[in-house]
Structures are given as structure tokens and as C-alpha cells.
């Protein structure tokens, strides 16, 4: 099976355009049988975390372990908590780009990126475009990247408020059955994992907060649609959503 190494973004984009799938940590793609031809994007130099003044940029191939320890991300509590709690055995391999590009509902880095209103810089042979991370999730294991596009980096706008992340799995070291991130900086933003087919912002719940907890809970339950699966039943996931909402609000002092 074919495997190429890209040394520039252009080279990666060209191969992706020709049907190659990008691979960085490989922790998701290597579990799929017959992944097809792969282009290794680990050597492009996209594993940075840097201060851009009005935002922090996280390169797509920065690993979860890098994010966990980055001093630049200290203000982004929700993201670093998610990184700390990431499945331990793969956190030195798994990259934030892969975690988002896979577009799975339980991706732990997704809810934090959503509450920080992060943007993704997408690169292709025709140039770059910037989209909101939220718009990248097209469906379960289906991202909104166009043919020939790869994620180059994420831009997290300056943030100096409070934030928190909390997940519940079946055990301490498990995929999220339900996860939630919250941020407060002027406005309150709430995002969830495993509450719909893709990670989502809970905008109705955010709005309803001003009318009290009851209203926020109701709004949250009506805008999420968690699924019944082997890992958890829908009603339990809904129970967790409201439990996590209360806990997250408490943690950020609301």
C-alpha cells in the first residue's frame, strides 16, 4: 500500500488532491482496514503552538501531549483539561488535527475548540481559507474539508475568562459517553461531545441561561440528540448532559 512523505504543505495538498489521506499520529486511521494511500504530514513542521498576538495558533500536527504542557495555552483551561484526560496510551501520537478531522462525536478536543470559537486554517493548492471549527463537522466521521484540502492550524482567539471541561466515560480512562466544555468571558458558551452525531455548540442552552437553570436544562435537552449505543443509552446521556451542565457552571463560578 502506498505511503508518501510530504515535506511541504503544497506537496501534501497535491497528494491529497490525488486521493491520498493525510496521516499524522495515525491513531485513528491505522485502525481502519484498507485506509488507502497515505501521505505523512508529520514532517511539514505543523506541530507548533505559537502566540500570534490576537490569537494562539495550534498547528494541526501538535500532539495532545504538547497541548497538555503548553504554557501558551494556560488560559485555555477547558482545552488543557481535555488534553490531560485524553486516552493516555495515545496522547503522544494523537494530534489535534486528527482529533478534529475524524469528526467523531466523542472527540475530546472538539468541545473546547468550540467554546473558544476557534477557527481552522485550511490549506489547498488554490490557497488557504479560514472557517470556524464548528463548520468542519459535516456528520459522523465526515468532515467538511473540500477535496485537496488539509487542516493547517487552529486559531484560538485571545481568551482571558474562565473555562472548564468535563467528560464522563464508562471508566476513568475511557472515551466520552458525554463531554462538555464551557467558557465565560462576557458571554457564556457551552459545547458538548457525544450529544449529537458530531460535537456541537448548545446555543439555545446558552441563551436560556439568563432565564435560569431549568430553562437552560430544557433548552439543552431539546437541542441535543444523543444516541443509544452499546456504550450508553440515550436517557443516560441526557442525564449526564444536565449533570455536566450544573457541574461546569459551578466550576466557572456561575
Amino acid at each position, binding site marked *: 500500500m502506498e505511503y508518501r512523505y510530504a515535506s511541504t504543505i503544497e506537496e501534501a495538498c497535491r497528494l491529497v488532491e490525488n486521493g491520498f489521506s493525510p496521516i499524522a499520529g495515525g*491513531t485513528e486511521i491505522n485502525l481502519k482496514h484498507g485506509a488507502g494511500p497515505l501521505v505523512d504530514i508529520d514532517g511539514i513542521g505543523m506541530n507548533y503552538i505559537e502566540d500570534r498576538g490576537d490569537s494562539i495558533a495550534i498547528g494541526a500536527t501538535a500532539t495532545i501531549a504538547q497541548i497538555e504542557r503548553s504554557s501558551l495555552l494556560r488560559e485555555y483551561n477547558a482545552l488543557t483539561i481535555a488534553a490531560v484526560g485524553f486516552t493516555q496510551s*495515545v496522547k503522544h*501520537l494523537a494530534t489535534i488535527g486528527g482529533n478534529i478531522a475524524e469528526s467523531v462525536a466523542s472527540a475530546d478536543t472538539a468541545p473546547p475548540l468550540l467554546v473558544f470559537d476557534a477557527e481552522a486554517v485550511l490549506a489547498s493548492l488554490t490557497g488557504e481559507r479560514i472557517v470556524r471549527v464548528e463548520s468542519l463537522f459535516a456528520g459522523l466521521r465526515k468532515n467538511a474539508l473540500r477535496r485537496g484540502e488539509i487542516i493547517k492550524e487552529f486559531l484560538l482567539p485571545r481568551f482571558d475568562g474562565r473555562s472548564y471541561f468535563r467528560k*464522563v466515560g*464508562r471508566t476513568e480512562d475511557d472515551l466520552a459517553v458525554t463531554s462538555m466544555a464551557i467558557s465565560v468571558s462576557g458571554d457564556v458558551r457551552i459545547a458538548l461531545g457525544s450529544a449529537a452525531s458530531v460535537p456541537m455548540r448548545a446555543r439555545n442552552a446558552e441563551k436560556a441561561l439568563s432565564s435560569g437553570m431549568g430553562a437552560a436544562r430544557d433548552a439543552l435537552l431539546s437541542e441535543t440528540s444523543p444516541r443509544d449505543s452499546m456504550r*450508553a*443509552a440515550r436517557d*443516560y446521556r441526557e442525564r449526564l448532559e444536565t*449533570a455536566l451542565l450544573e457541574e461546569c457552571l459551578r466550576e466557572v463560578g456561575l
Partner: protein
Amino acid sequence: MRIEFEMNGGHKVIDCDPQKSLLSVIREDLGLTGTKYCCGGGECGACTILLDGKPVTSCIMVAAQANGHSIETIEGVRGEREFEVIKNAFMAHGALQCGYCTPAFVLYAYHILKDGRQATREEIRREIAGVYCRCGSYQKIIDAMESLLSGGSTYAEMPEGSDVVGKGVERKDYGDKIEGRAIYAYDLKPEIKGREDVLYLKFLRSPHAFARIKGIDTGKVKGTVLVLTHENVPEVYFTTAGQSYPEASPYDTRLLNNPVRYVGEPVAIVAAESEDEAEEALGQISVEYEVMKPVLGPEEALRTSIRIHSKGNVVAEIHEVVGDPARGFEEADLVIEREYETQMQKHVHLEPYASFSYWDNDVLTVETGSQVVYHCRRTISRILGLPENRIRVFSHTMGGGFGDRQEMTLEQYVAVVTHMTGKPCFASLTREEQFFISRRRHNARIRMKLGAKKDGTLTAMSMNALSDTGAYGSHGLTVTTNMGSMTLPLYTRHCRNIAFDATVVYTNRPIAGAFRGYGTTQGGFALESAMDELAEALGMDPIDLRLKNVIEEGAIDPISEVLSEGGEAIPRRIESCGIEEALKRGRELFDWDRNKGEGGIIGVACGMKGSGVAGFEFANATAKLNEDGSVTVAIGAADIGQGAESAMAQIAAQASGISFRDIRVTSADTERVPFDMGTYASSVTYVTGMAVKRAAEDLREKVLQRAERLCGGRPELKDSILGDKPLREFAMECFYGNDRDELCGFGSATDITSPPPFSAHFVELNVNRATGEVRIERYLAMNDIGKVINPVAAEGQIHGAILQGIGYALFEEMRLDENGKLINPDLTNYKIPSALDAPDIENHFIETNEPSGPFGAKSCGEIAFVPVAPAIANAIYRATGTRFRKLPVTRERIAMS
């Protein structure tokens, strides 16, 4: 594709499929077997390597990802300066058991040390949570790493000489395991790679839970591939259970059966010159099934007219009565009746099965990882019609067993291929195959009825169990017998009215078998939960209720007078009993009464088990003096990671006066060691240990007699010094002096009464009622295992049993879909406890002296499993007000209660 990387200080260039798993490259192409295969899904961490200095799971990396990078494996790290201190710390803390995960943990330790970071205990716990240890050594691994990071001395004083029983000597297997040198059966695959004569075996598995095979078309299979089906394997019925003869399990299976009775059952086996070729051949076989309606639950098995086996669905029934239960319940002031249910649990020993067979001249040799090599040999002899002296079965170091290896899983298949073809044959299971094909714990539905006086005196007990042995009856009768016979005697101080009824049924579920606890886990959950419910109904403290009723030293176990594990009943007198002290001291240490008064979320439960199987277990040992004064002890039992060989060496040293370091134990090889029933029923320390003690005493006596004959007086033998001379001089003289004599001690032991070890465990929880999360805040384990031979190793076993019990209590469950197919056959969906699920356990041994055991020892392996689930469930009741009578008590069930 050409791939280049730095590895362990050298430059490697390999040419391979770029998308081949990096783990396979390391193990099979480069032959470095210290990096282990376990789950193949990046969940367990056994395959951890350091990539550019960082710990990563190599099983989900492809070879090409290594290009241009630097890799370190245990084979490289063991040559580094830091390794010695890591090794010392792991040894000093006893931070390993079977050793399969150990290289991975060593790499984590090395990574943290190299990083120069400081880390708290909780940070270390999180850091190492990427590696599973099914033996449950997390606490000791964290202890070891804490001592490493604190920069203190990691070197523990190791006892020398022959006076070693009761001391935490350095286990003899530690070195090889920490260095990644120990060879497991799974490691034979890389070892035999490149040999052209070897056939590789693969299974074609049934997609149906119950189906008649109408035809198998193998016509499309290309190449020189051997295909075996039910039509051309020997027409011999046997049981895969490794039990004493005649087995208490029915002879209800052939090598390949028609009909097939569970999803995953082998329908055909193929043996080809490569694994790929075998795999390809599987796809070329077409099978025509007549799919039948499966029976997927034990209740249904009783009701239905569908017969899973021609003799019907009932494998065995037990109806035993002591005294007059009806009158006992009449005499009671209060009677409670409750029903409990337990689930199918999987062993998940981290090393999956592998077996390798070949002709060694005219001896059919099977290299494997078995707890029962002699039982294996007997059954293979039966299947193939070969005399036992032309079959050799031996075990390599085993990556955990927990009962799953008290069973033939692959041995019979590779043996038949070698027998038919004359060629060597290797088989190994992937994790998924392991989930489908190997055994699991019997699920059971147990109705408990307890009658008591107002003061808590039990007047009658009744247990009624329905136990599900799955598609074949392996261990069905005996596991189910233990549900009552090994639990109910605990509360017979006054109660002499006992009824125990049980039915064991076939279903079209995966085959059940032996699993640590062996029935006492199911029965114990029911009994100990019911005792808690009774205490509440009586308005009594649950410890007081137990103290009122627990059995005492000197008592005759009333159930032993009517029931045994598949043989004649043998009345047993309890000669050593620490349960009362365990409860009393535990109550104090736990500050139970204050804690309860303050509304603490606390629970208690007790347990008992046996030491071997009464009337059956039979072990033999030899202790042979070598020319240089060293001694080789040979035993037929196997070391499955618990440290049996070292415990035997300690017993031999203490009994002979020969230093521990001069004794080597060799085990589990039908060609080289004397007969032993095997490693099960927690029998090794107790039964094999007694045989070793007698062999060592016999050797000592022979040494002293000879010395007396030659020199007149009878000298002392201690610490390998005979009189005033090193034993070595004496030994040389035996072989090369004028009056030559080879000195070899022989010892034999039969288990008469299977004296029970006891336990009382106390747990304090924090339960998040909204999410259902349970955090174990405190775990106190009081265990009476008689005299403790090696406190460090024994504590490791206690920790492991408790951790498996925590998984059993809270989340482990094999789940089937409506067609009977296992839906969670991997470690992503069948979770086992990680370091994050592991509390720091406070373990105390209540040392008693069992007169029938070696130096007073009883058994240790299983006892600590029994009380875990009921203690936790009892505590969860205090938090939630809900009685969880069904395991596992998952987060989901707690939150939704």
C-alpha cells in the same frame, strides 16, 4: 518500501509494506520480543515503545511512520545507565507479576526519569494509565516510580540464606521480566519466523449461535493447505476443562463440532505455510448452514424444547440439604428472600493464547502457556490415541492466566495438525479471537433465603442457583458447586439448616470455564449482599451480624459433610480461621463505627475459598542436589505470574537449609518434572508447596545421613553450609568421591480438606449520583491466608484480585446482541481497570497457622476477589438507597436508579 530509523542506538534499514503495523516490524522483522502484542487497538499499552523519547503504542502505528525517527525498546533501554535504578525499584517494590506489561511500564519510568520532571503520586498514576496491568500491580508500580523520582535509594535489602519463609525475597522471575527477556508462548512466532516447515493455523468461525453445518466446500482452497472440518477430525469426545480424572465436566465436545453452538465456534481449521495464506484460505471455504433458533439465556434453556446437546440442556443438578431448613426458617424471627444476578466476565490475561507443536524425534511436543500441562497431555493422548510417553506438553512464561489456561484452547488443535501432517504447527489468537474463543466466568442467577433470630443468629440458609455454562459444559458442575459449598460454610457458627440447590444449563453463549474465584464470586455476591440486607432488616450492624455467625476454628464445615467438588464428600474441620479477627481488626482500622455514625458511604463483605480441591489435588516434587551444591527443584504446577516458582524455592530453602539463591525451580513440563494436577484452585502454595517441603526435607535428610555415615556426627545444614564446610564441597564429593551417590529428595502431597482462607474487606466510596461515577476513597483488605510465604508477592496477588473484583463490580461485562454475538470483543468496548480505576489498597494479613499447609500456609490467589463486588454494592446502597442485585453496577445504572 525502504524505511530507515535509528533503533536502540543503531541504524536500521528495512524493506516492508509501509502500512504494516510497526509492532509487527519490531517483533517479527527485527525479532525484538520485549515489546508485546496484546490488544492491537492502542488501548492497553503493552506495545509501548519510545518514539523520539516519547512513549507511544506501536500497534497502531504503521512502519512508515518510523522513517527518520528514533525508536527505543526495552532491549535498548536495558543497557542505559538509568535502567539499573528502575530495575532495582521494580524489584524492591514487587512491581510486577506475570511481567507481560512490565517492559512498557519500565519505558514509562525511563521516560519520566529522563524528562527530569517531578511528579506527584496522582500525576504518576495518570502518566502510567496508558498501560494496563491485569495482574493489578499498579499500586506497586506507582510505589516504585515514586521512590525513583524522590531520588532515594531504590535498593531494598534482600534476605539471604535459607531462613526465608515469610520474607519478601526478590522473585526469581523478576530480572528477565523487567529486562524484557522472558519468552512467552506468544513470542514463539518471531522465534520460528523463517522456518519453512512450520504451518500456521487459523480458525474459520461460526457467525451463528446455533447452526447445523449442512456442507462445507473447500474445493476453492488454493495451494497446499490442510483444512480440517468436523468431517475429518478424530471422532473423539472430550472436555477442554483441565481437571482431575475422571473430569467433573461432560465429554461433550469434539475438536470441531456439528452443530456449532455459539458465535465464534471454530467450524474449520486451516493450516498453511504462512498466516496470510491461511487467512486467505479461510475466505475460500464456503459453509452451508441450517441456522437454528439459539437459546440465549439460562431461564430460556430450562423452558425451551430446543435441545442444545442431545442429552438436553441441563448439564448438572445439585440438591444438598443439611439439617432441616424448613424448620430453621420456621424458627426464624425474620426471613428475607432475594434474587441476585451476575454477569459474564472475561479473564483478559494480557498475553493472548499461542501454542506451538512439533515432533521431537518420536515425541509430539506442545509448547504453550498452560496451567495444567499434565491434564493437557492426558486429553491430547485420548484424542490422538498416542501413548502419554510420546507426548510432551510444557509451558513458557505466561502473561496471566486467572483460570483461562486451566483449559485446552489451542493445544489440541496444533497437536492434531502436527499429528496428521508431521509438520510443526503454530497458532496464536488475536485479541478479538481471544474474546470469542476462550472462556469466561459463568453468569448466574442466585436466589438467597436467610432466616435469623432477632439477635442475628442465623437459623437457616438456602441458596438456589441457576448457572450458565454456555455452549459446552467446561467446569459447569464444579464452578456451580462452589457457589454454595465454598460460601455458605462461612456463616455456620450456629446455623445447621442449609439447603443448596443448583442447576447448570447449556446455552448458546460463549463457553464458560474456570476464572479466579470459581463460583465463590457469584455465590459470594449473593450471600454477602443478602447478609447486608438481613442486617438492615434486623436493624443490626452488618459487622455485628457477621461476627455473630462466622465459623470458628475447630468447627466442622457442615456442607463438607454432604457435598464435594464432583466427588465423595469429605468432612472438613476448620483448623485455622482468622475471619473473626479480620472483622474485628478491620472494624478498628477502618474506624467503621465512627464512619457509619457520620453517614459514610461504606460497605463491608467477607469471603472464603479453598486451598486446592479437597480429595483431588495431588502434587509431587523432586529436589536434586547438583555437583556444585546448587539444587534443582522440579514441580508439575505452573507459574502463571503469581510467583509460584519463587514461593517454592522459599519453601525448599527453609525446609532444607540450603540458601534461597542456590535453589532453582523448574516447572510445568511433562517430560522433565513430576506429576501435578496443575495451577488452579489456589493450590500451588498449599498442595505443591507441601510436596516441595517434603522433597526438600527428604533431600536434607539424605544429605545429613550421608554426612553422618562418612564423618560420624550429624552436622548442621543452614544457609548452604554443612557443618563448617560449604555444601558445594560435600556435593562434589557425592559425585566424585569414593562412595558415590546422587542425592535427590522426593515429596508428594494430596489435598485432604482444602482449608479455607478468609477475607473481610471494607470500602469507602464517593458516589456522584448525577453521573453515577464511583470513586473508591478507601479500601481496606484483611486477609487470612495462613502463614504468608512471601508478603510482597502475596500482596501483589491480593491487589490483583481486588482490581479484577472492582472491574467485576462496576463495569466489566461481555455483552451479546439478540443473535448471541458478542458485541464488545475488544478492549475499547470491554474495559478493564486502569491505574485510574485503582485505589491505593491497605492490605493486612491476619496470619494464622494452618497445620496441614507448608509452614502453616493456606491459599492466596483467589480469596481477595470474593468480597470485592458485594462490599462495593453494599456501599453503593448507602449512597443511593438502591440495592443493586445485579452486576455490574455501572455508572449508567447508578445514575438511572
